[in-house]
């Protein structure tokens, strides 16, 4: 199995641990990731608010870079906003006749072109559909037994373009969590919005949304995320949310590949657990026990 790997901008900065842990887990699974040299921003949620054409051209530029590499494989994208944007290009080509021509007129400035047809897939889709719980279970060195994980999917990994899970009541993360030997925290908040970019422009509104999520996660040891924006909103404002809500709502928030990597026996440094903002002492202690288990095996 091999994929074009599009990490996106956040995974070079605030979500570096998502990037490193994704690559470490893929390597452990024997999956080849082909990095695109010279990739550029997908437009995030900014381009679509300012220019329709730019919001197509920015992701299409990356698809065009892959198209000239003569490799027949899908994109693997860990960031939900990047995934939405890259996938959006092909989703629109079918219904908008002149679009491809316009995109290529712009891309021609860099002597690039795109003809459509490259599949953009979210990391979660690849983990759940292509790899699957069986293959993951086979690589587990130390079960995360006794660990209760709240699966958090967020919005744009599922909507508007999903196809690999129910966009309202997603469940594809559950068998993956169980494959690690961990327990699924039962909640119905997995597909609810974290507030996304409103945390920068309308903080008080976003705080309401993250607050509801953190409250519902009570009783879990950690929340598993698959999006750098969700991660940031859930892990960076816990103090403020706790203060507003009048109760301690601190909880560890880890990226799903970090948890998979822990069960694979990878080290803290391989998974960059030290970079997470919310990584509680109680979870640290629990994970340390699992590691002791590995060395004694």
């Amino acid at each position: 199995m091999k994929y074009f790997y599009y990490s996106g901008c956040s995974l070079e900065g605030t979500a570096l641990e998502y990037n490193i842990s994704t690559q470490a887990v893929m390597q452990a699974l024997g999956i080849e990731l082909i990095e695109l040299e010279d990739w550029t921003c997908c437009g995030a949620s900014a381009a679509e608010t300012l220019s329709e054409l730019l919001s197509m051209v920015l992701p299409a530029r990356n698809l065009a870079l892959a198209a000239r590499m003569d490799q027949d494989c899908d994109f693997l994208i860990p960031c939900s906003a990047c995934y939405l944007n890259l996938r959006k290009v092909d989703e629109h080509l079918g219904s908008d006749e002149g679009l491809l021509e316009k995109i290529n007129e712009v891309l021609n400035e860099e002597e690039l072109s795109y003809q459509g047809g490259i599949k953009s897939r979210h990391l979660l889709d690849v983990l759940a559909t292509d790899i699957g719980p069986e293959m993951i279970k086979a690589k587990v060195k130390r079960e995360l037994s006794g660990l209760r994980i709240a699966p958090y999917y967020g919005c744009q990994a599922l909507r508007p373009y999903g196809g690999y899970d129910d966009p309202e009541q997603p469940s594809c993360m559950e068998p993956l969590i169980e494959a690690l030997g961990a327990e699924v925290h039962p909640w119905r908040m997995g597909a609810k919005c974290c507030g996304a970019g409103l945390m920068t422009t309308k903080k008080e509104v976003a705080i309401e949304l993250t607050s509801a999520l953190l409250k519902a996660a009570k009783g879990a040891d950690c929340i598993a995320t698959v999006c750098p924006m969700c991660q940031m909103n859930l892990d960076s404002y816990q103090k403020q949310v706790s203060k507003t809500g009048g109760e301690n709502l601190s909880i560890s928030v880890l990226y799903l590949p970090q948890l998979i990597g822990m069960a694979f026996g990878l080290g803290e440094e391989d998974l960059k657990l030290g970079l997470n903002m919310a990584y509680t002492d109680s979870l640290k202690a629990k994970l340390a026990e699992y590691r002791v288990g590995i060395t004694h095996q």
Partner: protein
Amino acid sequence: MSEENLTLAEVHEVADPMRVIQEKLRACMQCGTCTGSCANSFAMDYTPRQLWRMVQLGLTDELFNSKTFSLCSSCYYCTLRCPRGLPLTETIHALKQLAVAKGIAEKKGARFYQTFLDTVRRYGRVREMELMARYFMIMKSPMLPLSFTPLGMRLMIKGKVSPEMPKFFGPGKMDAIFRKVKELEASS
């Protein structure tokens, strides 16, 4: 041909972006599923359902004075559930584009996104620390950076962002692409 019978393609030719948006929303039957599904409707002055009605009726002043579309966090629940299958989240984006084009966009959001795209034009990728630095400079609000200082400090301690100084002059990596997009949009 009467105006009522224009196809979507013909409306595009008329090149009035508000007409294009109105055409997209013509089938809205005001059921309110969007409002019931919206994560942020609690903070809005007009609900999404009311917003679509204002579009249909051409109440542009009320529409662009409302806080509603700057409160959309693009969760796509309304798009998913709309029984008419209307592209509601995309319509919000189209309204935001129109507000920017008319120069009436809400300052904070529009400037944040403008700053964002400016760093993309310059470097090809977003440098998060620089993005925030530029945003604060443009907003000229002394209190705004303070509200982000604790997070910024923690990110810096973790080595996730580097305090690079922004470059304001010189050519950008993606100048050609941004220029061409502007040129095509001006001619359409």
